[in-house]
């Protein structure tokens, strides 16, 4: 009968599982990011493409090196896609004309410091891409704040010029530099201008939505990012809790202050469509490892990030506050996870068994 086949294995229940594995989840997220990435690469041209490739390659190589040093099984981990995703997100937050070594350093910080020093997959406290971005912004302010206008692949620098920009640093800053929306708003508000005067000089709403605005490599395609995020929600990879609470809190706070003093505070729409808020809401804040696990915890976390983004943008010294907001809330995640737990079946929120409702059943007999 079954004499030649191995006997059935004894293993604990359950004896079947979902098709979603770690690599599959990572690849799905990458797939959702691809449209916005392609838009950014197209708009910023060859230098962006080279920078992107260098960052991804560096991320992967650093991952293999760390796995080898840590003695972990290479075959399993090198193919799980998590390093690729971290490198992708780091690349998305870099200025498109940054030199290649900025990408490499960023990838190195993200993978080595942000992930493996904490213990590898699933053990990091802070979001690796945001750690890298924060460190780069503080250490290399010039390279990280040099924005260029998106002119498109065909009108921009050609292949050789692109190589020169990325690898040889041949950037003519005076000619190419252009301010991003947030940095323009911040510097002009700081100089005393009123919002009503600044607004005409900024890119219009349509431009901001479709990516015709200066910014990081992958953050400009607002609509595409939102669509990618909604696809992830539909596939149940992420829930709507964090994006809703983050965007909702940001909108509410910015609306409040804009209504009070429209001259000194940008409108909520400006906040939502500029900078890396959309990327953060759907792809960065929803990172599994660094966000709380319960639904209520996620709402608190998202609201915290939204509030901090608004605070840093309005009163902090950086035009874009997303990286720091995320890092600050990451630090709160273990606290949130400890105290905000789902309610256990049959118990109250404080853990005691539910009180018995005396007597009456649905028929109300007794």
């Amino acid at each position, binding site marked *: 009968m079954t004499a030649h086949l191995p006997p059935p*294995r*004894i*293993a*604990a229940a359950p004896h079947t599982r979902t098709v979603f594995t770690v690599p599959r989840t990572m690849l799905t997220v990458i797939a959702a990011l691809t449209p916005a990435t392609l838009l950014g690469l197209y708009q910023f041209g060859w230098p962006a493409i080279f920078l992107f490739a260098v960052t991804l390659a560096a991320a992967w190589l650093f991952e293999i090196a760390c796995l080898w040093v840590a003695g972990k*099984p290479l075959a*399993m981990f090198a193919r799980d896609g998590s390093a690729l995703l971290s490198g992708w997100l780091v690349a998305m937050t870099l200025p498109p004309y940054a030199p290649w070594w900025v990408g490499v350093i960023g990838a190195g910080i993200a993978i080595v410091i942000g992930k493996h020093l904490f213990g590898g997959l699933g053990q990091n406290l802070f979001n690796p891409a945001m750690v890298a971005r924060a460190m780069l912004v503080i250490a290399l302010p010039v390279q990280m704040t040099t924005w260029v206008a998106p002119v498109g692949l065909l009108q921009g620098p050609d292949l050789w010029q692109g190589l020169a920009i990325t690898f040889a640093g041949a950037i003519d800053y005076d000619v190419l530099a252009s301010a991003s929306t947030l940095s323009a708003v911040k510097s002009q508000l700081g100089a005393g201008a009123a919002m009503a005067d600044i607004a005409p000089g900024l890119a219009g709403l349509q431009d901001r939505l479709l990516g015709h605005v200066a910014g990081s490599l992958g953050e400009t395609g607002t609509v595409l990012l939102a669509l990618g995020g909604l696809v992830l929600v539909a596939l149940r990879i992420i829930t709507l809790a964090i994006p809703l609470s983050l965007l909702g809190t940001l909108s509410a706070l910015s609306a409040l202050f804009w209504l009070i003093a429209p001259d000194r505070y940008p409108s909520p729409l400006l906040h939502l469509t500029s900078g890396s808020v959309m990327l953060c809401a759907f792809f960065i804040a929803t990172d599994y490892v660094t966000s709380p696990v319960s639904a209520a915890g996620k709402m608190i976390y998202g609201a915290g990030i939204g509030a901090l983004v608004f605070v840093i943008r309005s009163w902090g010294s950086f035009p874009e506050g997303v990286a720091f907001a995320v890092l600050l809330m990451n630090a709160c995640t273990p606290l949130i996870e400890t105290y905000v737990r789902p309610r256990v079946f049959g118990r109250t929120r404080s853990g005691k068994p539910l009180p018995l409702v005396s007597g009456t059943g649905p028929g109300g007999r007794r």
Partner: protein
Amino acid sequence: MIAAATSMTALGLGLGLLLGIAARRFHVETPPVVDEIEAVLPGTNCGACGFPGCRGLAEALAEGAAPVSACTPGGRDVALQLAGIVDAGGGASDLAIGAMAETEALVAFIFEDHCTGCGKCFKRCPTDAIVGAAKQIHTVVMDACIGCDACIEVCPTEAIVTRSKPRTLSNWYWDKPPAGFGQIPQARTGGAA
């Protein structure tokens, strides 16, 4: 400068003297800990630790002359409680407990072919876990046996051995899943010992 040096020295000496007087004057006698230790021990006076009964081990522990892992029938639970009381410090307790792996409960088992019914084991058992009349085969009641090995030492025909307590269907459970990664989870079924 000399004034500074002398004044500092005088200050130091004076304060040191004060501290010494206070240490002598206000010294608190610690309550007898031997009774506390004895309460934790099993109280069967089996002698497996090598000290005269549980009281003897309690006194040795209070002095620090015995490691917290000395009581083998008590097992890891007793050792952990003792470490809480004795508090040798310096990590000696942790080392001793770490060496005691979480072992299965051990019980004695009498091979009936070799038993002559002499009754020496019966006299030695501290919990009366052996049953059997004179000249009849004796057997061990596993629920009462604490695994102290006293009976094994006196049996003239070496009919008694230590075995891990056999698992039954009612107390079987899955093994701890392997920590980490890289293996298809599969359990050793751990059948009857």
